């Protein structure tokens, strides 16, 4: 079975990508997983400079999910390029870098540094982190903001450009359209849902940041719906995510319209999940006599739509 997919000019050997924020800089997992087996590795979000992140507690487990408010702790793009990227390349990883910014200029500068570095497969634009005040979501929650940041970064890089959309909007499909009009090569969705948990004994919020982002199987049906809506709105490849914990979950996203999928929270519980995802997808394709995984994309929209 042919598991390869294309995201713009980037070919992935299979559709399974480790989701940004859930896989460190990839190298943390190199002892457990052959990074070259994955379709891609989306590394933790990077600003120009290093960032501290929020005080702990940073996560709370909730039914079939978890809240996080990490605050984009990170080493900054320059240290990433010098200290992490060469080793990721040596290990054969297809590297997708999640790019953050407090301003449009910062998004552009980080993207420029990554383009110049070489060895980066694609840029995922983080315009959707719910946990920081400056940057990110202020662009992702406004149609003009989304257009402006994608359009500006488009002018400084030829790398495949993938805005990561937030689900914390009324009509996510309109943000997919804004991304397409601004020159994106693909979109990824969903980032986490803004959420909260309160300790009823201390009567205080459980996260130091008060609010956090909900991920995990609890959000999966909503994420599938949003991928489905975006597929109807745009013809760009979609990187679908939100609670994927098995090959079957991933297939559901593909049928909704995702060309590739990202797996995050489930990797925390099972860092060895990747081989079972790949073999599960392969078995499914064989059982349904589908030669290429790309033929699955969007089938839930009906045959006419899927083969249009």
């Amino acid at each position, binding site marked *: 079975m042919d598991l390869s997919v294309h995201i713009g000019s980037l070919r992935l050997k299979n559709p399974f990508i480790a989701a940004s924020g859930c896989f460190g800089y990839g190298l943390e997992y190199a002892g457990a997983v052959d990074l070259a087996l994955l379709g891609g590795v989306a590394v933790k979000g990077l600003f120009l400079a290093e960032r501290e992140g929020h005080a*702990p507690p940073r996560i709370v487990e909730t039914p079939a999910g978890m809240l996080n408010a990490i605050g984009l702790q990170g080493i900054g793009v320059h240290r990433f390029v010098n200290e992490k990227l060469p080793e990721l390349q040596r290990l054969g990883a297809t590297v997708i870098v999640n790019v953050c910014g407090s301003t449009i200029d910062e998004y552009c500068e980080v993207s420029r540094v990554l383009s110049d570095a070489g060895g980066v497969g694609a840029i995922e634009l983080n315009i959707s982190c719910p946990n920081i005040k400056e940057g990110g979501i202020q662009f992702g929650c406004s149609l003009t903001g989304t257009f402006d940041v994608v359009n500006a970064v488009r002018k400084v890089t030829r790398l495949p450009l993938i805005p990561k959309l937030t689900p914390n909007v009324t009509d996510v499909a309109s943000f997919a359209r804004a991304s397409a009009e601004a020159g994106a090569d693909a979109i990824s969705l969903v980032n986490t849902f803004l959420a909260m948990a309160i300790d009823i004994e201390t009567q205080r919020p459980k996260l130091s940041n008060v609010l956090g982002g909900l991920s995990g199987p609890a959000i999966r049906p909503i994420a599938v719906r949003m991928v489905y809506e975006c597929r109807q709105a745009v013809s760009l490849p979609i990187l679908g995510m939100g609670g994927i914990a098995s090959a079957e979950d991933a297939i559901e996203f593909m049928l909704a319209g995702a060309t590739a999928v990202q797996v995050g929270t489930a990797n925390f519980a099972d860092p060895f999940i990747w081989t079972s995802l790949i073999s599960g997808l392969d078995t499914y394709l064989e059982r349904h006599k589908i030669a290429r995984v790309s033929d699955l994309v969007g089938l839930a929209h009906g045959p006419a739509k899927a083969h249009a």
Partner: protein
Amino acid sequence: MLIDVAAEVIANTRLSSHYNVVALAAPEIAARTSPGQFVMVKPAHGFDPMLRRPFSVFEVLRDAGGRATGLSLLNKRVGVGTSLLYDIRSGDRVGCLGPLGRPFVPVDPPADAWMVAGGVGLAPFATLTDALVARRTPMTLFYGARSAADLYYADRFEGLGARVVLTTEDGTRGEPGRITAPLERALAAQPADRPVTVYACGPTPMMRGVAAMGRRFNRPVFVSLEPVMGCGMGGCYSCVVRVRRAEGSHFVRSCLDGPVFDASAIVWDALPDGH
């Protein structure tokens, strides 16, 4: 090397209505475990709970020939995951990933090794004791709990040659009060030319107190922290602890840079008491 096994539960020994010891058939992990390392445990299939829980390896279990046959976990029932582990039955399978984290470095004679445990904080000291016995390092275990019913395995440590000092908050066994009181007296009485290394694990206020004594009496203190942890692999950045560096301080992941830290490097005021 990192190993993940669906380990069979060999035994579940209930110590009280809240504490139990679970023995797992995970010989490959046990054989590679250094003192103070931890495993990430998933007590049940499914999504509630979804994440694994970190546990210090309590004992490395061995057969008559000294070969590792498994490991045990000292569990305190507090939430969903630890309740499942409290109720688990022999023959059940438990996801067990490890060994993980930076271990304790056991000190050699002529130094004394003083271990300070608060409640379930006893967990990392059985493996450390084994390593100290092998080095013939003189050991003292300072072990405090709420009540006599919460003090376990003191005999086991005594049997291995450790001097054991006990305290209970309600005075039902050992000295009444907190374990930091006899520790402080012992530090004050220790001759300056007798080196001693202190190892501590327990509630944050206790470890903060032990760290302060280490500074005051100029003795090295190593602590094993038990923060909330999402993955144990460095992926989630949830288990961060603020440490001092040459320039200022910053957050490091306790799963990779810990769980054992030099107490003098930790910014104690930044550590939540819930740890």
